[in-house]
C-alpha cells in the first residue's frame, strides 16, 4: 500500500523498530537525550518499542519509572528545563489523563509564563487507538485535547518512515512535542532510511493525488483511507489522500490547496467525532477562502459518540472502517452528500 517512491533501495522496518532506531540514534548523537517510562527497560516496553535499548544504553538512560504518570511527566519537565532532552513513554495514551496537569499547565505554558526565557524540550510518546480489544480505558484517541493547547506540538505518525523522522524532529524541537503512536501500526512494515533524518513537524503529507475528493486523515485512518482510495479508483473516483501527520500546528494550507482543487472534503479520524480533529479541519476550511470552492458539505467520519467497547464487533463499529470510508466518499462524490 505504500510504494517506494523516494528511496529506490530501502530497508524495511516495522513502525516499532523505526521508533527504536530514532531513539537509539538520538541517544548516540546527544548525551542529553534519555528515555523514561513504565517497563521500558528489561521488559522492552508494553508494545516492545524500546526493546533492547536498555542493554545498549544502560538503566541510567533508559529509566524504568514507578507507576506515577504525573510524577514522571513532571520529572521530564524538570529535566527538560535544566538541560536534558527527555523522551517519556506513557504506556497507553489513556494514562495521559493522569499527567495532563504537568503537560498542560507546566510544559505547555512555562516558556510563555516565564516571558520566553526558558524552554521545555520534552517529547512524550504514547500509543493510542483501538482495535486490540483493550476496551474503554485503553483505546482512546485523545490527540484533539492537546491540539487545543497552545505551547504544545502534537504529531501522529502513520508510517514507519514518519515514526522515525517525526520522533527525531521532536527530539530536536525546543518545545514539548506529544507523539500519538497507534497500537495497530507497531508491527506494520515500511521503508525506513538508515540515516538519522527528520520529517518536519507541521507538514501534512499527500499520500495520493486525486481530483474528485480530498480525504484528510490521521494515523491509522490515513492507512485505511489510502486503501479506500485504491478501491475508489477502481470505481473511477480519484481521491486525494492527505495524511495530516501533525495536529498542532496544523498544515491547513495543504488542506486548503487540495480542497480548492477537488471541491469536496472528507475528514477521517479515529477520535470521537464531536470536537475531534475533524472538527478543526472542517472549521479551518469553512472559514477560509476555500469555502467558495466547496461543492458539497464537509463530511466527517470520526469515532462514534461512545466509549470504546470490548467486543470486537462493537469495537469495529465504533471507529471508521475501510468500507465506510469507501461508501462515504462514493456518496459524497456521486450524490454531493453522505
Amino acid at each position, binding site marked *: 500500500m505504500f510504494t517506494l517512491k523516494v528511496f529506490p533501495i530501502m530497508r524495511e522496518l516495522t513502525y516499532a523498530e523505526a521508533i527504536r532506531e530514532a531513539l537509539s540514534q538520538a541517544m548516540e548523537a546527544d548525551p542529553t537525550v534519555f528515555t523514561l517510562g513504565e*517497563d521500558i527497560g528489561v521488559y522492552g516496553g508494553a508494545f516492545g518499542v524500546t526493546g533492547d535499548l536498555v542493554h545498549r544504553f544502560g538503566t541510567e538512560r533508559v529509566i524504568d519509572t514507578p507507576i506515577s504518570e504525573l510524577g514522571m511527566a513532571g520529572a521530564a519537565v524538570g529535566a527538560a528545563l535544566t538541560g536534558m532532552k527527555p523522551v517519556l513513554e506513557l504506556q497507553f495514551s489513556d494514562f495521559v489523563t493522569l499527567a495532563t496537569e504537568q503537560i498542560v499547565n507546566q510544559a505547555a505554558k512555562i516558556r510563555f509564563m516565564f516571558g520566553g526565557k526558558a524552554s521545555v524540550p520534552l517529547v512524550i510518546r504514547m500509543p493510542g487507538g483501538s482495535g486490540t480489544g483493550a476496551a474503554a*480505558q485503553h483505546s482512546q484517541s485523545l490527540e484533539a485535547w492537546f491540539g487545543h493547547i497552545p505551547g504544545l506540538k502534537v504529531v501522529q505518525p502513520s508510517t514507519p518512515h514518519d515514526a522515525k523522522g517525526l520522533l527525531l524532529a521532536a527530539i530536536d524541537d525546543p518545545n514539548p512535542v506529544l507523539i500519538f503512536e497507534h497500537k495497530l501500526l507497531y508491527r506494520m512494515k515500511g521503508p525506513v532510511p538508515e540515516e538519522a533524518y527528520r520529517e518536519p513537524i507541521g507538514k501534512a503529507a499527500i499520500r495520493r493525488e486525486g481530483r474528485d475528493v480530498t480525504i484528510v486523515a490521521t494515523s491509522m485512518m490515513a492507512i485505511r483511507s489510502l486503501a479506500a482510495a485504491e478501491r475508489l479508483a477502481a470505481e473511477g473516483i480519484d481521491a486525494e489522500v492527505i495524511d495530516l501527520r501533525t495536529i498542532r500546528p496544523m498544515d491547513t494550507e495543504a488542506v486548503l490547496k487540495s480542497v480548492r482543487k477537488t471541491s469536496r472534503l472528507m475528514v477521517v479520524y479515529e477520535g470521537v467525532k464531536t470536537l475531534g480533529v475533524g472538527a478543526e479541519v472542517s472549521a479551518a476550511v469553512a472559514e477560509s477562502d476555500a469555502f467558495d470552492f466547496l461543492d458539497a458539505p464537509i463530511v466527517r467520519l470520526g469515532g462514534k459518540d461512545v466509549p470504546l467497547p470490548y467486543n470486537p464487533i462493537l469495537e469495529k463499529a465504533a471507529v471508521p472502517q475501510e468500507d465506510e470510508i469507501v461508501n462515504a466518499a462514493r456518496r459524497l462524490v456521486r450524490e454531493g452528500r453522505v
Partner: protein
Amino acid sequence: MTSATRLKDHAVSFSSSRTPNQRPEFAILSDEEIGESYRLMRLIRRFEERAEESYTRGLIHGTMHLSIGQEAVAVGIVGALKPHDTITSTHRGHGHSIAKGADPARMFAEFFGKSTGYCGGRGGSMHIADVEAGNLGANGIVGGGLPIAVGAGLSAKMRKSHQVCVCFFGDGASNEGAFHEALNMASIWKLPVVFVCENNKYGMSMDISRASAVPDIAKRAVAYAMPGITVDGNDLALTRATAVEAIERARRGEGPTLIECKTYRIRGHSKSDRNLYRTKEEIESWRAQCPIERFKAEALDLGRIDAKAFDDIDAGVEAEIESAIAFAIESPMPDPTRLTDDVYAESLPHHA
C-alpha cells in the same frame, strides 16, 4: 493494631474450634467457612486456568491478567465482608469478583464478548462489575479504584448504611498519587474503608525494590495515621482474620486500615509477558507456596475437613466451570446496531 501479631488476642470467639493446636486465625473459621473458602479459591483458580485456555483457543479478544497464586487474598479478605458491603477491584480482579459472588458463567460470557456477560460484552476482563451486588468494578487504570473506594466509604458513612468498602490494589499502584490522596482522605474522615494491597512483588516488570522506596507498603500507613499490617497473603486464615479485625474496626467508625498481603503472581503480567525480569527459580519457589494447597493441607492436618469433602468440592467446581463455559459459548453476541446504548442513563422527569 499495628502488626499481625496483635491478632493473637483477637476477640472473635473460637466457635467451631473442635481441634486442638490450631492457630487462632484458623480456629475462627467454621467448617462451613473452610469448605466455602476452599471452594472459592479453587473456583477462581480453575476459572482462570480455563480462561487462559480459552484465550489460547482464540475465544478471547484482548488481554487478561491472571491472579493465579493470589487466591487467598481475594477469598480471605472478601470472605470477611457482609453481602451488602462493597469492593473496588483492579485489572487483576477475577478473584475479587468471584469471591464477591460473581457468576463464572456471566464472567466467561463477558470475556467472550457476549451480551449475557456482566457488561453485555462492552467491558471485558478489565471491567467486570456488579454494582448491585457490591462489586464497584475492576479497573483498567492502576490506582483508579482507590479514590472510588473513598467515595463508597463516604457514601456509606453519610447514608449510615454500616457498609464497609474493601479497596484492592497492587504494590505498583501504591506509587500512584491516587493512593496517597485516597488514604489521607479516608483517614481524616474516618471512613469505613479497608485498603488491601496485594503485594505480588511486581508492577508489571518493576520489582517493588526498584519502584518503591519502602519494601513494605504497610509502612506507608504511618503517613496516614492508620494501622498498617503486613501479612502472608498466601495464608487464607491469616488474611481472613486480619480482614475481620480491620472490617470490624471500620464498621465501628474507627476508620480505615491498610493491609498488605505479600503474595505472588505465578503467571506473567498479561498474556504478552515474556518474564524477562524474574527467574524460573523464583516462580517455582512461590509455586510451592500455593495458597490453595497450603490451606487444604492445614485443614486436613487438623482434621477439620476430610479428603473426600475436598474432592467433592473439586468436582463441583469442575462442573460449574464446565457449564459456565458452555453458557458463555452459547450466548449471543451483542447487537452492533445497539452500540451507543448505555452511554447515557436516561434522564427521569425531575422531582420538582
